[in-house]
């Protein structure tokens, strides 16, 4: 049995080690410390999958029902999978790009790592909120301190304002739950949530929507996303896009789908409409982008919207599809951002019209690039496909018009293929003729993430079997 708090413990040890390392001027590199912590967590997680996890609950303040309780909640495992594994792969990217204030960076990195994992296993809402905030703030600092010199200030402030608003509404949701059920315990709330008056449920839903629409994000509350994603250092962008955005999906599943299904079903056409609008609107906006990183930032919202639609369908298909998409998108978007950073490192630009013909100089990178783009397009055999299928099955069965979302998928094909063509294909520029391919360790990193994409694509049952596991 693996104790769920061991992830926190590992991170704590890591942070202490980092501080000691700096103050005692040991010669250990920060990356090695963080790598060993994360590696240990990965091992812990997979042994937990085999041997089971052990929950913990310690009452801290009984009057407001604040307890340190960690427990799997049925949807924890798939989210944990991405929260544990993706940062492990991203570490290599961080190592390559972060050269200043490494100790501080990796402290934030570990903080974000531990709090992201803990958000998904907190069984007490106050505890969950603390981790939620810790994750958001560590990411804020990563953008603000290590982001792109010119734009980081504006982008990070905007990010902070938006996410704080979303945290505020989430807190309001928690308080409302508490006042109507008298508990912050997830299990208790879930049992009693049916008793919440329907009017209050709608209020909860609207507050929750603000949180979710900002966090995922969806139209029209996505204004923070392009700037934050593009100004953050690549490792930060990946944490944002592949993990932080999934907290929105998590919140919608746990506090919407599980707690207030009747309000959700009342608002269902509206919810699905938001998702569809986002899919189509964003696919058009993404078409106009020439900057590779911005293109991937925008296009990742399409999958967020599909996840949103899947959950809003309130069907088993839809929710299963959403979970699959959540897991799959985390790996794929990480690949896409890593690859665009590799291209940037070599060419010095994110502007696609200034690249071209790179496939002849970097066959390995090109292979992974094409692979990732095909994966994100939903080619069967790779992870996005089954998720999309299930989402649309769920959505169609409750609202047939949902199929118009597929128009967005067709539009997205166009810009994805354009991205491949204008970066990799065609005549190579003379200035790029001496560029080299990715290194062996880069390949290993890409291979690791790709392996998950193939595995989840060929055997989606593995991911789906993680759903529903509690202690």
């Amino acid at each position, binding site marked *: 049995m693996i104790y769920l708090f061991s992830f926190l413990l590992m991170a704590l040890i890591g942070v202490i080690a980092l501080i000691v390392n700096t103050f005692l001027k040991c010669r250990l590199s920060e990356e090695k410390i963080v790598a060993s912590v994360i590696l240990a967590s990965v091992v812990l997680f997979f042994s937990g999958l085999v041997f089971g996890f052990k929950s913990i609950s310690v009452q801290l303040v009984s009057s407001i029902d604040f307890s340190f309780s960690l427990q799997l909640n049925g949807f924890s495992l798939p989210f944990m999978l991405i929260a544990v594994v993706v940062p492990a792969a991203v570490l290599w990217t961080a190592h390559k790009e972060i050269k200043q204030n490494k100790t501080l960076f990796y402290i934030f990195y570990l903080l974000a790592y531990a709090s992201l994992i803990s958000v998904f296993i907190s069984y007490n809402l106050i505890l969950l909120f603390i981790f939620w905030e810790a994750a958001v703030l560590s990411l804020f600092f990563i953008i603000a301190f290590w982001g792109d010199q010119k734009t980081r200030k*504006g982008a990070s*402030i905007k990010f902070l304002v938006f996410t704080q608003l979303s945290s505020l509404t989430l807190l309001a949701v928690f308080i409302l739950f508490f006042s109507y059920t008298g508990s912050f315990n997830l299990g208790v709330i879930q049992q009693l949530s049916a008793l919440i008056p329907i009017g209050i449920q709608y209020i909860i839903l609207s507050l929750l929507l603000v949180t979710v629409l900002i966090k995922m994000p969806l139209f029209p509350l996505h204004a923070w996303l392009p700037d934050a994603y593009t100004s953050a250092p690549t490792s930060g962008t990946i944490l944002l896009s592949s993990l932080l955005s999934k907290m929105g999906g998590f919140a919608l599943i746990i506090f919407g789908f599980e707690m207030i299904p009747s309000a959700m079903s009342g608002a269902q056409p509206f919810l699905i409409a938001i998702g569809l609008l986002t899919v189509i609107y964003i696919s058009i906006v993404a078409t106009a982008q020439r900057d590779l990183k911005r293109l991937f930032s925008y296009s990742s919202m399409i999958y967020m919207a599909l996840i949103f639609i899947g959950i809003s369908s309130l069907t088993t298909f839809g929710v*299963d599809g959403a979970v699959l998409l959540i897991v799959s998108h985390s790996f794929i978007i990480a690949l896409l951002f890593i690859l665009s950073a590799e291209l940037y490192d070599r060419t010095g630009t994110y502007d696609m019209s200034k690249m071209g013909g790179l496939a002849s100089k970097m066959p390995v990178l090109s292979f992974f690039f094409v692979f990732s783009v095909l994966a994100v397009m939903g080619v*069967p055999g790779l992870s996005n496909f089954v998720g*999309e*299928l299930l989402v649309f*099955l769920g959505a169609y069965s409750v609202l047939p018009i949902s199929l118009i979302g597929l128009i967005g998928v067709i539009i997205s094909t166009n810009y994805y293929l354009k991205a491949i063509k204008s970066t990799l294909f065609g005549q190579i520029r003379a200035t790029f003729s001496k560029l080299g391919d990715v290194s062996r360790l880069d390949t290993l990193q890409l291979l690791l993430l790709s392996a998950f994409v193939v595995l989840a694509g060929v055997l989606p049952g593995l991911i789906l079997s993680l759903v529903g596991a509690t202690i």
Partner: protein
Amino acid sequence: MIYLIVIPMLLAVLLIPFVSGKKSFLISSVAAAISLALSSFFFFEYFNRPAIESVTWFTSGSIKFTLSMSASNLTLFMAILVSFISLLVLVFSNFYMRDEPQRRYYSEMSLFIFSMLGLVLSNSLLLFYVFWELVGVTSYLLIGFWYGREAPASAGKKALLLTRIGDIAFFAALVVLFVTLRTFSISTILADVSAIGPATLSIVASLLFIAVISKSAQFPFYTWLVDAMEGPTPVSALLHSATMVAAGAFLLVLMLPLFIEAGFGIVILSFGFFTAFLAALLALKEVHLKRILAYSTIESLSFMFIAAATANAGGAIFYLFTHAIFKSLLFFIAGALMVLFGSYDIYKLKSSKKNKGWLFVPAIIGFSSIAGLPPFMSFFAHLGVSANFTLADSLIFLLLSFLTALFSFRALFVAFGKGSGPRPIKNMYAYIPIIILSAISILGGVLLFYFSGVILINYSFDAFSVISVIASLLGVYVAFELFSRSRLPSAVSRSKAASVNLSKYGWDKIITAFGGSFMLFAVWIGRVDDAFIRLFSRLGEGFISLASASRAIENGDATAYVAAVLLGLVIIIAVAVVFV
């Protein structure tokens, strides 16, 4: 056990990246040979004893998503055809691609063959879709194989983009069908077609029809296939004969009962005739040999559509079989000419004044097959296509036969103009496939009479067959007069000028213009979004200036901060207590 047929190709895909040079050719062709042997074995094993094998892919809720393969006369016959043509194409590749430095060629070809084999064996529409998309994606990679030039890169993108419209339509059809019938099994769906409501049925049929015409490059999607000629010639040979475009026709044949139930017979028929005319006319003005063949493929696929629309699925399949043989033969010839003369332009080939050697003989066989002349196999295939024709269909078909013969023999007479001096090809990888395919094209016709024992087929040998051969011969004669003896050169040039006007580029331009205007629209929406984002930034900056204005509060006094935090907390709690 049926899945064993696809396994060798999959192994080839996985193995090839780890070997070097010549070995990749060996691995892929041995894999194709094993697939061929296995499909033949299973063909006899399961002959007239259809079987279905299924496996659960994953479970969502209580619903199982099963993948199933079916062994029937039709599917195993198709598997034999696909693996046989693939084997020959791989052999020919060893000649045509012998100096290719990129090592991914055989790997991608194997993936392509794997996907097509999987497709023809699928009994679950879900599995069919999986392979359908894989076929599309691999053909994208292969068409754009020489990515260094602009044309192949664009052609690949165009192919995938246009066929993906069909893919997504197929995806939508899958969703609708599954939600309606709770199954993906093709056999169950066809058995329950009557249980689907009329509105839903029309939607499904329309979506599937879009899928079919985009994959089979019918109007209005046909332009991708013509551009796809930028790919290596063996790829074209495979793409045009037994894979990719054949996948569309195969889906049409498989789901024919559904289309007929939805009343789509007349739609398919009209699309078929229209596309056939269009393709024949466009082929007449084209000077690029491979593009002429591409138009001919489009026309041949229309013939399959026409046969299917007249409720003669067997006729469509037999034509598909015949077409696969003679079209890959013609592409091999085109490839060999390219290697010899460095051009696909039929007028350049003519002016090269060199002897095309023995290639002339298979070329006659191939082009006569396009025209459907006896005694070649294609003539017998035409008997199948036209079996269920009404009088009106027959009359239109006569005109088509004439046009078809005209454009195919134009290509033959021009490209193989007079020459001198021997230029034989000595590479056996080139001539063995050509000889095998020529032999089948000559002798295969008799298979028609045994075919009904395998797959139900209607064919008729009657006065109409004779008349249609006469129409074709007339076309041959006109082509001979116009293009070989150069009678009426002014008429030729005038017809060329006229055809340029209604050329492919007309429709292609519309598609491009649509793409361009969409791009403009997208840029405009993008600006709106930027403005929207800036609005929020302004808002944020407003807050910041507000904050600076209130800097007095931030005096650095820690006790004041703590006091403020506590005060805030008290207010929140008070609010909560009062209102809740």
